[in-house]
């Protein structure tokens, strides 16, 4: 579904990762690990097509990715249902019922998102993935501020997504109980290169 070869990414003008390679096919999950600042977010943003890679290639259809960032992307003055319906319409998907049940949001659906707790808002943000209809989920710290029950809810949503032929790439610190390969980013930390290529010849 996505194949990455010899990928290098940079934050600002500073290269953070080099030589990253992996492939994820349908039904698989890839879990990225690494200390803070190791480039997880940068890598995920690159995969989502928000920033161009420094080098290397990403094979896969960017139109097949759904990206969920650190930030919730939830509009606080809209209700839960309105938030989801908006994204469903943007992605051309009808029906938000599955997403609401999947993340246990039915009881909250007419509540204004601003009145939700941080964890509930996070669930709403993750429920958005289910109305995108995209097969590859790119998740950046999806479990932030979720309680144990909600983490389980999320894990089962991911499992269901994988069973349905989807795939997921996520950066997370906690063990979700999702069977997936773990990719430690530490070995890919960008070393000093002798080539001037990425500094425009300033070195």
């Amino acid at each position, binding site marked *: 579904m996505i194949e990455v070869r010899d990928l290098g990414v940079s934050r600002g003008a500073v290269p953070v990762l080099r030589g990253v390679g992996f492939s994820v096919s349908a039904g698989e999950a890839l879990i990225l690990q690494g200390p803070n600042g190791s480039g997880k977010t940068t890598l995920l943003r690159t995969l989502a097509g928000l920033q161009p890679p420094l080098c290397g290639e990403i094979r896969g259809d960017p139109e097949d990715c759904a990206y969920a960032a650190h930030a919730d992307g939830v509009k606080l003055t809209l209700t839960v249902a309105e938030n989801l319906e908006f994204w469903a319409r943007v992605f051309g998907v009808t029906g938000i019922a599955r997403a609401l049940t999947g993340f246990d949001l039915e009881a909250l659906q007419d509540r204004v998102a601003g009145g939700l707790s941080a964890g509930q808002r996070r669930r709403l943000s993750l429920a958005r993935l289910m109305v995108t209809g995209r097969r590859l989920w790119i998740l950046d710290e999806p479990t932030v501020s979720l309680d144990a029950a909600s983490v389980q809810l999320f894990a089962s949503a991911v499992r269901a997504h994988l069973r349905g032929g989807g795939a997921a790439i996520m950066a997370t610190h906690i063990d979700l109980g999702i069977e997936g390969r773990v990719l430690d980013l530490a070995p890919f930390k960008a070393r000093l290169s002798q080539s001037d290529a990425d500094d425009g*010849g300033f*070195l």
Partner: protein
Amino acid sequence: MSIWEYANPKKFLRSTERVLPPLWLGSAVLITGGLIWGFFFTPDDYRQGATVKIIYLHVPSALMAINAWFMMLVASLIWVIRRHHVSALAARAAAPVGLVMTLIALLTGAIWGQPMWGTWWAWDPRLTSFLVLFLFYLGYIALWQAIDDPDTAADLTSILCLVGSVFAVLSRYAVNFWNQGLHQGASLSLDKEENVADVFAYPLYVCMAGFILLFIVLVLYRTGTEIRARRMSALLARERMSE
């Protein structure tokens, strides 16, 4: 030997290091010479009296105010199309020079206008265009200052420069149109270039050449400074990474 070789920062620094001293000297000689010639050795204009001597500052600075923006536009295009860092830095280096040139043109114009038109300021199309140009320079420089990442800043300022150029031209037409609407035909503009007598013209040419040279020197020198600053931050980033 292609001109793009100078887009290599090191090559640029090495070459400018060689040509800068004679250029400094040349611009200094031309400007001092031209101004002294104009100030001491030209007669007064029969209509404008001694104020005609202001022309030796006013016209060259106005010329460079516009050409500096034009050069920034070309440099921005080169950055957008060919991604040569030196080009983006040259645009950045030229902006403050252009700003000062615009300011000189505006101030000398105001000082000149006071005795000639009886007012410091008139919303004459030319003056107004320069005022708008001044605002464009301010915005452009402020945008460079506001962004930390140099490549992002280069991208954003380049596009601002391209869009700004279109709007600057539009403003020029708008202002022309607008002022004719205000006082029908009563133009205060000074079309000196066309009827300047030779006595005034020769020192003026010298001054114009001097200002052009000064602009080139300043831009080359400032681009060199920007390159060094950029190299320094690249070295520091490298040092941080190797820790």
